[in-house]
Each structure stands twice: as structure tokens, then as C-alpha cells.
């Protein structure tokens, strides 16, 4: 194809997206669109899978049977969501095994928030409330993104996730209304998860490399800073309601902006974790790689068995 032809195709492509038409797997698409989507969608899938670990850490220790089944179901949903997202990514011509390979070798990223440890039961509440809360703000606009398989996967994800944040906030309510010890546990969890949750919405707009392109392709509808502000504005009243204090002395209502002003985020910490030096980066990867390697003989056995069954069937047919 000549450069001119490609230019014209790209122009038509951009117009289609601007008209809110969806792009489907076999449609022509610019290579950069394909690569950007593989990167973002797989990063999203990896985040679901790695995100199972900090919460999975508390399944065996959940304080009641009711909490245990809710947590199990939630972590299982994360596996499901990872699966939907890997499948959607595979429509772009890359296999799940290649995507795992990228995760396991550190080539692919996942959400940094999962590199923090879950130290108490209240962390299950804080993660559901804050981390899922921030994730929803990111995810809801994606139900309308330009790439059909991604949009469809996100519709399913958002529908299923509606219970996750409620599950977390309910845990926090119980703790906040509980004994002084429980309330302290809840406040401590909020203290530790608040700032990482704000960082989770991405670097500030002036530092964000992908925003303009992502906006055009509807991978993003709002900038990181807008999303962060939305998250803070909706979360602060929720903390007030249950008598917990957001750990930010600079937080105050700005009447003029009709929004909260908030303190400086420690971006050095953010970049440290992104670059692999957070408290749990190594542990998380070890867990993922370990599960994959321990599972290899199982996956091989299933394939060998399927092949034997097929051959036996063929023999019978002769």
C-alpha cells in the first residue's frame, strides 16, 4: 500500500470513530491503534489477575462465612474479568500466552496499586471502596470505547463489578460503627490506601504521554486530573458519612470550583512503584510466575489427553 493510500485509510478510520462507529477485529486499523489497544487492554487484564493476589491473601482468614463467600466471589470475578479482557485482546492477533509472557518478563505493566500489601481485614474494605471506586471511574467510559470487543468486555465487567464497591464500603461501615479497635483498623486502612488510590488514576495531565491520542480513540473520555478530581469529590462525603478522616491536611472544599482542593501527591513514590520497587512488586510476580509454572504439567496433560481422545475417536470411526 502506498503512503498516500494509508493516509486516506487512516483519515476514513478516524472519521468512523468520530461518528461513533465501532471498530471490529477484522476491520482495517492503523498499526498504532492495534498496538495501543494491545498495550492498554492487556495492561487492564493483567491488573485484574495480579489484583486477585492482595485480596486472595485474606480469603482463608475472612472473619465470617458471609464475608468469606463475598470475597471469594469478588476475587473470582476478577479472574473472570481478566479472562474477558485477555479474550478481547486476543482478537487483535496476540495469544494469551504471549500476553502472559510479557507480564512475567516485566515487559507489560499492571496497575501499581496491587504492589501494596494487605495487612489487615480492613484492607479488604478499603480496596473495595477506594480501589474499585477509582477503577469504576476509569472503566465506565470504556463501555463506549471505539474498539468493539473491548467495549463489549467492559460492559460485562462494569455490570458484574457493581457489587464490588458496595461490598468494600459495607465492610468499612461495619468497622467504622464497630469497636474502637475496629474503627482504628478502618482508619489505618484508609490512611494507607488513600494516596495510592489517587495515584492509580495516573500521572498528572502534563506528565501523561498517551492522553491526546487516547481521547481521539475513545480509550479515554476525561483526563487523569479530571478523573482524580471526580474520585475525590465523590469519596470525601462517603468517608464523612462513616466518620473516617481522609489523611490529607490540605483537603478542603472550594466553594468557587464546587470541588475539593487537595494536597500534593508523592509522585516519587508513584514512579518508584511503577518502576518495580514497590513493597510487593517482586512477590506479586513470583506468585503469578509460580502459578503458571506449577500449572504447566497440568495444561500439558489436558492437551495430551484431548489428543488421545481424538485419536481414539478416529480409530473407532474407521
Amino acid at each position, binding site marked *: 500500500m502506498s503512503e498516500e493510500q494509508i493516509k486516506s485509510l487512516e483519515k476514513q478510520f478516524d472519521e468512523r470513530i468520530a461518528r461513533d462507529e465501532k471498530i471490529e477485529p477484522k476491520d482495517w486499523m492503523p498499526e498504532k491503534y492495534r498496538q495501543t489497544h494491545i498495550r492498554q487492554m492487556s495492561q487492564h487484564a493483567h491488573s485484574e489477575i495480579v489484583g486477585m493476589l492482595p485480596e486472595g491473601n485474606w480469603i482463608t*482468614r475472612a*472473619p465470617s462465612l458471609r464475608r468469606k463467600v463475598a470475597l471469594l466471589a469478588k476475587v*473470582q470475578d476478577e479472574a473472570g474479568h481478566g479472562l474477558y479482557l485477555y479474550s478481547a485482546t486476543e482478537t487483535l492477533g496476540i495469544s494469551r500466552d504471549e500476553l502472559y509472557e510479557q507480564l512475567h518478563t516485566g515487559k507489560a505493566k499492571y496497575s501499581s496499586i496491587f504492589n501494596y500489601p494487605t495487612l489487615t*481485614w480492613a484492607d479488604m474494605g478499603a480496596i473495595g471502596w477506594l480501589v474499585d471506586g477509582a477503577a469504576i471511574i476509569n472503566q465506565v467510559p470504556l463501555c463506549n470505547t471505539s474498539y468493539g470487543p473491548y467495549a463489549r468486555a467492559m460492559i460485562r465487567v462494569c455490570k458484574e463489578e457493581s457489587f464490588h464497591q458496595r461490598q468494600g464500603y459495607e465492610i468499612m461501615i461495619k468497622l467504622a460503627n464497630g469497636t474502637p479497635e475496629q474503627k482504628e483498623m478502618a482508619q489505618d486502612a484508609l490512611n494507607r490506601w488513600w494516596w495510592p488510590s489517587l495515584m492509580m488514576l495516573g500521572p498528572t495531565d502534563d506528565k501523561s504521554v498517551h492522553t491526546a491520542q487516547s481521547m481521539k480513540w475513545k480509550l479515554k473520555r476525561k483526563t487523569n486530573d479530571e478523573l482524580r478530581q471526580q474520585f475525590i469529590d465523590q469519596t470525601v462525603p462517603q468517608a464523612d458519612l462513616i466518620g473516617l478522616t481522609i489523611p490529607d491536611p490540605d483537603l478542603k472544599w472550594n466553594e468557587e470550583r464546587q470541588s475539593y482542593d487537595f494536597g500534593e501527591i508523592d509522585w516519587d513514590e508513584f514512579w518508584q512503584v511503577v518502576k518495580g520497587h514497590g513493597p510487593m512488586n517482586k512477590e506479586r510476580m513470583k506468585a503469578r510466575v509460580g502459578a503458571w509454572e*506449577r500449572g504447566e*504439567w497440568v*495444561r500439558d*496433560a489436558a492437551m495430551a489427553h484431548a489428543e488421545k481422545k481424538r485419536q481414539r475417536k478416529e480409530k473407532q470411526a474407521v
Partner: protein
Amino acid sequence: MKNENLYNYILGIADNSLILGQRMGELCGHGPSLETDIACTNISLDLFGQVRSYFQYAGKIAGDGRTEDDIAMLRKEREYKNVLLVEQPNTNFAYTIGRQFLFDVYHLAFLAELQKSSDLTLSAIANKCIKEVSYHERFSSDWVKRLGDGTEESNQKMQDAINDLWTYTDELFHLTEADKATVAEGIGVDVTKLKDNYYKSVSNLLTEARLQTPESKWFQKGGKQGVHTEHLGYLLSDLQYMQRTYPNMEW
């Protein structure tokens, strides 16, 4: 307690699901593939659902306000009545599947009988559980076949797991005092009658999976009387951690 036999009988049933559910739950996030991970969690969720039905009923029978969580998490190690089989660890996926399979075949036959119980609550619970357990049995049997009749390595691993777990199977068919009392009342299931069919079904499936049925006649027992393997203590310290560390609180 007025109806201590029935109470103990229910705990004997439910503790199996509780401890096996806990073991399956440990795997969540660490399964051999994403699809298998999700399937194993489903089994764990089914089992905990069963536990809640049984313990809620047991709580009612006790009649002193004890909750499902009190029963599940606040007993001492010697008071858990599960069979030794279900507390065995996830040494590798073959052990997970082997343990599940050896229990499922029993569990399915047991529930089919419990459906006929003269205790209407128990028969209703059995009615609901049997659909779940039919699926568990199908899932674990299929995997025994895959691993047994897969690669040389998987065949060896599956055989090792079956050999090791075999010693815990006989206990499934022992009668406790509570069993005897409830059987006499038409409530409980006489598990001794399930034994022959159990070994026949298991052996058939193992043959189909190209595995040897162990010939050893040396069996372990004690779980039903609260004399467990060393594994259970560690499992309970996780299960009970929150209730023990923060007593008398709501979650």
C-alpha cells in the same frame, strides 16, 4: 442441649464441606489456568454455601443463640468432626483433584440418601446440594481422567496422589455415635451401606483414567472423633484468626 445427636450429626456433615471449601479457597488466584481457577473457586463457593445452610440449622437446634460463625470458627481443634481426607493439603494439582474426586463420589452418594431423611430441613438442604455436588463429581472425575490419561508425568503425579490419599477413604464409611442415633430415627444416613458402591465407582473411574486402584488395606481414621492430622491446626489458625484475635465483634 435437647437434641445433641442431631446437632453433632449436622456438624459431622458440614465440617467436611467447611474444611474442603477452605482448602479449595486457598487455590483462588493460584490455579493452573485462569479457567480452572474460576472453576475451583466455584466449588469452594458451593461448599461454603452448604456449610452456611447446615450451621444455621445447627444453630437453631442448639437454641442458645450461637451463630453459623460461632460454630464454624470458635471450636477447638478436637471439636472439628471432618474426615481426614478433606484436610489434606494442596500438595500439587493432582492432590487437589484426587482429594476432591475421592470425596465427591462419596458426597454424591451420601446426599442421594440424605434426601430421603425424615428431617425435612436436612432433606431440603440435600436436595439443593446434590445438584452442586453432581457437578463437582463430574468436574473432578474429568480431571482425574485428564491427568491419569495425559502425559507420563501427569499419570505419575495423579497415581502418587491417589496412593497417598487412599489411606483416608475408609473413614468415610465409619459410623459415629451421632450417626447411629440419627440412623435409628430415620434422620441419618447409614454410610456403611455406601461403601461397596463407592469402591466400585472409584475403581472403575481409575481404570478408565489408566490408574491403578491401590491395594493397601491400611487405613487412617480419627477425624470424625476429632483426632486429626497435623495439617488441620494450621488450616484452623487461618480460618479462626479474626474471630480469635478480635472476639465478640461484628464484621
